[in-house]
């Protein structure tokens, strides 16, 4: 099936280094649709939705931002830290979203597992269900994300 011009442009933007070095898809040869479907399925398998995890990521980021790059403890099991960098970044999808270049890292104190995300990751997960391709610098593994950011995650449902 011939793809629409806007789909081709999106695929090009995601694979090119126009927005981030080495693109959003890394060395992942799968189609965008397959990447999104696989990750959402993994989330659903764990009893979560992209909206839920994005909301939690946003919540943690909002807690960390006022501490300007210093770690902050949330209860006694999680530590988050946000770093701001110069510049803004746009969403590769065709809509007017421009976000600060900010990286938030969450670390579970009990398991030492950690994960980092950008503000763009939060947006792309919430709006597009996109966790980036394997091998990209800001790829978010759904299972790891859920394990780190939710205290009571018990495993796949």
């Amino acid at each position, binding site marked *: 099936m*011939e793809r629409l011009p806007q789909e081709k442009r999106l695929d090009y*933007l995601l694979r*090119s*280094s*126009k*927005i*981030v*070095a*080495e693109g959003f898809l890394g060395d992942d040869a799968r189609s965008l649709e397959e990447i999104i479907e696989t990750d959402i399925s993994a989330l659903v398998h764990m009893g979560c939705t992209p909206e839920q995890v994005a909301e939690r990521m946003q919540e943690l980021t909002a807690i960390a*931002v*006022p*501490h*300007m*790059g*210093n770690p902050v403890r949330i209860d006694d099991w999680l530590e988050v830290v*946000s770093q*701001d*960098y*110069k*510049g*803004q970044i*746009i969403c590769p999808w*065709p*809509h*007017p*979203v*421009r976000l*600060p*270049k*900010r*990286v938030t890292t969450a670390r579970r104190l009990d398991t030492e597992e950690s994960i980092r995300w950008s503000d763009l990751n939060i947006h792309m997960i919430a709006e597009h269900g996109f966790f980036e391709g394997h091998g990209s*610098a*800001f790829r978010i593994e759904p299972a790891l994300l859920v394990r780190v950011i939710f205290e009571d995650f018990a495993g796949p449902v």
Partner: protein
Amino acid sequence: MLTVLLSVLIVSSVSAGLALVLVVADRFVANYGECTITINEQKKLKVQGGKNVLAALTEEKLFIPSACGGRGTCGYCKVRATEGAGPVLPTETPFLTPKEIEDNVRLSCQIKIRNDLKIEIPEELLAVKEYEAVCSRITDLTYDMKHFHFELRDPPTIDFVPGQYIQLLCPQYKGNREEVYRAYSVASDPADKTIIDLIIRRVPNGICTTWCFDFLKEGDTVRFNGPYGEFRLSQTDAPMIWVAGASGMAPFVSLLYQMRNERITRPTTYFFGGNKVKDMFYLDRMRAFEKELPNFRFVPVVAAPDEGEQWDGERGLVTQALERADADLSGHEGYLCGSPGMIDAAIKVMNQLGIPNERIFYDKFE
């Protein structure tokens, strides 16, 4: 079933063929001839039609800020197109507010020149030039910050106002197949017009900072254009409070040179924040400025020194240090450079201490 598939295939093929013919015709057959771009109702440029406005202006050495090099992905290259630009394209609308569309603001990289047109740009952009320079020294400042010293080659000198920035061209390199521009504040002495200094912090997976940190070497030739920006000292005698963190130091270094050169004696307190002692840099240089500028005081602030780390200065967030000053700053001006979060927090504190928003000037990391 086979008939349906064949029909779809034939229609798709015909559509694709027609689209291809249109693209080829537009590229090689369409001749828009020579067109005139009138800028700010005063400057007229004769250009060959068919290209986009940003490219045409760049060829004429007229630079509009653009981070993506004219590919319609950054949304920075806005101009006001008052005549002849045609309708707003779907590729532009994501970057334009309804008010901007109403005011005929357009992305110059998306306006194809098919006829004469009139545009309006900020007057200071007419003075922007393109420069070639040699990177003659790279110095580590911290684990994630470097100082880059460039000697100008062509043209050999630059005039800039302290506080302004340039756009550095990041070329293609392994992992980056596109040329992009990124903005960095100038950190050098405006009296030495033959060089520029930049202070750059590595952005994780950043296109340009990856090049600066991992590929750019001493002796390499670089290109940049500028200067741009409105951040600068006001023409008053008001005492000043400066707040910055990390590479936000850059414009303030240049402002300090200006104050020294022009013997500006405005009382100035500079709060410089970092998270750890390892984030601090230029402490000796700032102490030297304190000796040269009798009314200048430098206050480095470390949020949370590591255990056992020697730190005799202020502790806590830079905004907390400012808050602790607990002074009436109602006659002061505030100057800020750093992340949006830091700037927003510092503005709040400055307001509490009596500095109104109209006397607070900032350069946000945007």
